[in-house]
């Protein structure tokens, strides 16, 4: 953490207001949802126990996941490093003659600097989550793991989208939407992250609010999902625990607007879906964390981002004062 970055963040009163009010909104939302559920702490404990069990038997569940993905006609790519993951995507795009890729929000792809690798290979890559799209146009990195453009005001967003300064949120969204719809239709590959990987059904679960992940995974001919291997959970029914905890903690919603279950390419008779499906399971240092009994717990994280919203330090210095793409308390770990 660099002192001048901290001082810059602290000295920017507009930024200070933006971070403070946005994190308060997210934290208050969580508090309200948690108050409605007397058994919330039990659910958290159950989610913890499932994660603990899964990571203690990771080899079994990952192999089961792979078997089921393959049974659905998909392919699993085991990537030890970020470079291996990026190389696979670049090579596949070249083989299939793809020069436009659409992406939905994925911190894992940020972690491996995928956009830089694709750009260097001359492949146009478009972020389709509104916040990520804004950040991409501004040539910045996500400021918050679930709200990447949390630090931008409406005026700044209008400027980035080259819209009139007094545009409303609806007008700005419509502007982005018009551009992105075309990209979805033209793209040869759609890349998504994954909130959960279900071993017993070989499915990727993506939770989102804008519908862009669903379009990224179904409109282009090829769908690639990229996820750290710790995202695996044993059974589809475990989702009843995780989905209750995730949206409430992340955005104060009971459930996100879209919850997509993506299992392989389109089957015969199905109207939608990709022709090819690839799941990249990323290590990128996770095995080292797994080997450390104490640090292993950090792999239980479901990336709700609540720790950032509650962290008094994050709320002052913001998301760019941390040494890598994951900011806030969990980023420090």
């Amino acid at each position, binding site marked *: 953490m660099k*002192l001048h970055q*901290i*001082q810059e963040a*602290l000295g920017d009163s507009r930024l*200070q207001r933006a971070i*403070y009010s946005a994190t308060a909104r997210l934290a208050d939302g969580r508090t309200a949802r948690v108050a409605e559920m007397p058994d919330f702490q039990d659910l958290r404990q159950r989610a913890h126990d499932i994660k603990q069990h899964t990571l203690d038997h990771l080899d079994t569940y990952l192999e089961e996941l792979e078997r089921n993905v393959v049974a659905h006609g998909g392919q699993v790519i085991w990537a030890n490093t970020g470079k291996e993951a990026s190389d696979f995507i670049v090579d596949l795009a070249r083989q299939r003659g793809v020069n436009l890729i659409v992406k939905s929000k994925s911190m894992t792809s940020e972690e491996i600097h995928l956009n830089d690798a694709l750009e260097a290979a001359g492949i146009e890559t478009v972020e389709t989550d509104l916040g990520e799209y804004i950040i991409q146009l501004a040539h910045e990195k996500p400021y918050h793991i679930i709200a990447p453009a949390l630090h931008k005001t409406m005026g700044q967003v209008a400027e980035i989208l080259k819209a009139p300064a007094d545009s409303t949120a609806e007008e700005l969204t419509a502007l982005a939407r018009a551009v992105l719809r075309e990209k979805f239709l033209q793209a040869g590959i759609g890349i998504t992250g994954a909130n959960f990987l279900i071993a017993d059904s070989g499915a990727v679960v993506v939770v989102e609010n804008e519908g862009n992940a669903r379009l990224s995974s179904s409109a282009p001919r090829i769908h690639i999902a990229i996820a750290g291997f710790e995202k695996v959970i044993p059974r589809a029914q475990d989702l009843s625990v995780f989905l209750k905890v995730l949206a409430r903690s992340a955005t104060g919603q009971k459930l996100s607007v879209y919850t997509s279950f993506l299992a392989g390419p389109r089957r015969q008779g199905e109207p939608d879906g990709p022709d090819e499906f690839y799941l990249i399971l990323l290590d990128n240092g996770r095995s080292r964390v797994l080997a450390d009994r104490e640090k292993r717990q950090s792999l239980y994280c479901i990336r709700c981002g609540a720790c950032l919203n509650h962290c*008094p*330090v994050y709320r*002052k*210095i913001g998301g760019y004062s941390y040494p890598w793409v994951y900011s806030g308390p969990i980023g420090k770990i």
Partner: protein
Amino acid sequence: MAMAEVLERAGCDVEFREAQTCCGQPAFNSGYREEARRVAAHFMKVFEGSEYIVVPSGSCASMISHHYDQPDPRVWEFSKFLVDVLHVEDLGARLDRVVTYHDSCHALRELKIKDAPRRLLANVRGLRVVEMDAAEECCGFGGTFSVKFADVSGAMARTKIESILRTGADTVVSIDSSCLMQLQGALSRAGSNIRTMHLAEVLASR
């Protein structure tokens, strides 16, 4: 002194052992585990033979009960001791002030103390308690954090006092002197006349 007075009023025999020192938290938080262990050993020795050890600080009480190798069950934070051990909530205090209560991090988050100090304040005659919107927010002190990251610490204190100022209270009360020191510094620099008081001082007032 104020704590001793309140405890005596509540019927305790109070003894102050002069050989006592710091609980060792600054060393512990800075990574000097061995040195902290030596301070902890000294702590145990000094308080040998006493029935209860009452601490006027959530931070120290939390250090002793959460981070010592062998947490001492005789150690109690002051407000929790009054309410949960002595079962006393009214100490016959009187203070004509408007106060707002600051939840310190260690007391609230590690010791889960939220109601005890508020119940004690509710029974002080002449006192009006106004909750601030950011009661649970950190004051920014954080021990050595305030030295290592003075800029961030100061910024957090300024946000906290904005919330205090919105209440219209003339006094901020807490059970941690370190928070109060931080807040008093920030309040004075902001030109405010609001003063800080430890809960024990409030309860000792007549």
